[in-house]
Every structure is written in structure tokens, then in C-alpha cells.
């Protein structure tokens, strides 16, 4: 089974990369772009039937830093 973990910065955490991307979009002529936030997607190939609690544990122990990041697990 394939699982996708979406890791995003928590609201309120400054994202200078997102800000730079926003500026670049503006300079390309794309008006009306508000806040831009950069995250990452981690795809995990797991044994079929892997418990979602186990995936949650992976996220909390390593994949996300819960001081600054939120995560969401999606069954792909």
C-alpha cells in the first residue's frame, strides 16, 4: 500500500521560501497571489494493512517536526 504524508508549516511560522516564491510569481506578472506556503510530500510504500496508528507514530517520531510542522496522512 502507498501512503502519502503531507508535511506543512504550522500557521504563524514564517516561511521565507514561500515568500520568495510569491515575489517571483508577482514578477512573472501573476497578480493576486496572496500568502505562499511550501510543504513537502513523503510517499511511503508500506506492507498492506499497516495500522494507521503506526504511520502516525512515524510522522511524530521523524517525518514531521511538530514544533513547527503539521502533517496529514493520505491513503494513495
Amino acid at each position, binding site marked *: 500500500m502507498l501512503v502519502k504524508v503531507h508535511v506543512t508549516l504550522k500557521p504563524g*511560522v*514564517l516561511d*521565507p*521560501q514561500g515568500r*520568495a516564491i510569491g515575489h517571483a510569481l508577482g514578477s512573472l506578472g501573476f497578480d493576486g497571489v496572496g500568502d505562499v506556503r511550501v510543504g513537502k510530500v513523503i510517499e511511503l510504500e508500506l506492507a498492506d494493512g499497516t495500522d494507521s496508528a503506526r504511520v502516525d507514530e512515524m510522522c511524530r*517520531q*521523524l*517525518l514531521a*517536526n511538530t*514544533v*513547527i510542522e503539521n502533517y496529514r496522512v493520505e491513503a494513495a
Partner: protein
Amino acid sequence: MKTAVIVFPGSNCDRDVAVALERATGSRPAMVWHTEASLPDGTAAVAVPGGFSYGDYLRSGAVAARSPVMRAVADAAAKGVPVLGVCNGFQVLTEAGLLPGALMRNRGLNYICRPVALTVGEANSPFLTRYTAGETVKVPVAHNDGSYFADPETLDRLEGEGRVAFRYAETVNGSARSIAGITNSQGNVLGMMPHPERAAEPAHGNTDGARLFEGLLAAAS
């Protein structure tokens, strides 16, 4: 005084910090590879060096923080052994949960590599015994992810408990409350982005960082 320097794949300041420790303590530190499950017997201080452990994959310091040796470092820290994390070492200590908060991408997105002015904080730590709170020192920084972040409650707690070791005395990287280095609540764990080992002998042009290592020895004796 027996000291140890932790070495991860991608560490690149391990030898520099070893030289600074040897100059201060008179004995050569043990270089401890990250797969070791324990520190040498009698280790009286540990340094987690700068560099790019595991290529900064996932997050700076994230993978190194989960390596076997870090359990031994955490055990030593819990027993009061002084632990210093410099730059990537600071990132490793926050990722390992030995220090609160996180180090984020510099606000200006630039890699910053230059000597910066720091104000010594109130923190009570064996690493700070040769500094005076409020004095200004100059120590080089060299980092991409040095902007310190913690939630406001944590920042208030760090300040309230006198755990800020160094603050930037100039604009550097967007760190919350200009924090450049903090300690744990006992004071024996210090994490800092600036590199004291790069200002540790006259040939560096500045010896402000040497006092950190000398203070460690003074605190131990």
C-alpha cells in the same frame, strides 16, 4: 578532562571543535562515530559539531538526532554532563528534544557566513563561566537554517528562566527575540548557531570563542 566529539556522516566542524577542546583541556577528545551506542567511560563533556549531517535531508539535524549515539548523549545530558551543540549540532539537539524550539531557514534565504556580534545572556552554564552577562563578543556564524523559532510561551519561559546564552547584537537571520544560543533548564546543555571553535586561537584573529572551552574546564575543576 575526558571529552568526546560526536561525528555524523556530513559533519565538517568535528576536527575544529576537537582542536579547541584539546587546547582548553590539554587532552585529545575521543571522536565518537554516530553508530556507537555509548560514550567512552568517564566522558566529562560532549560536543555535537557543525556541518551537514546526512546532507540536511528531511530537516537539518533530523536524521542525526535519531542515530544510536544520541541516546547515549541524552543519557549523559540527563546525568548533568555538559553537552555543547554548535550550528548543525544545535539543530541536532533541538531535533533530539534536548533543547526546545527549532532552527528555520534564514529570513533572507541567504547562507550567512561572517563574524557577528553577540551579547552574552544570563544563562547559568558551565560553558559560560568565563563570560560576563551583558558583554559583547564576536563569533563567526556559517549557516542556512539558523533562524530560531519557538512558540511565545516557550520563548517567555526561556527568558524567564534565564536560559538565553547568547543573543545577536545585530541583524542576522530573523531569530525569534534575536536568540543565538540557549540552554536546557539545568544549564548543562548549550546549543548555539555561532561557532566558538572558529574564534579559539590567535591565528583565527579572535579568541572570544576560546573562553567557552576554557570555562568548561574551569567549571569541571
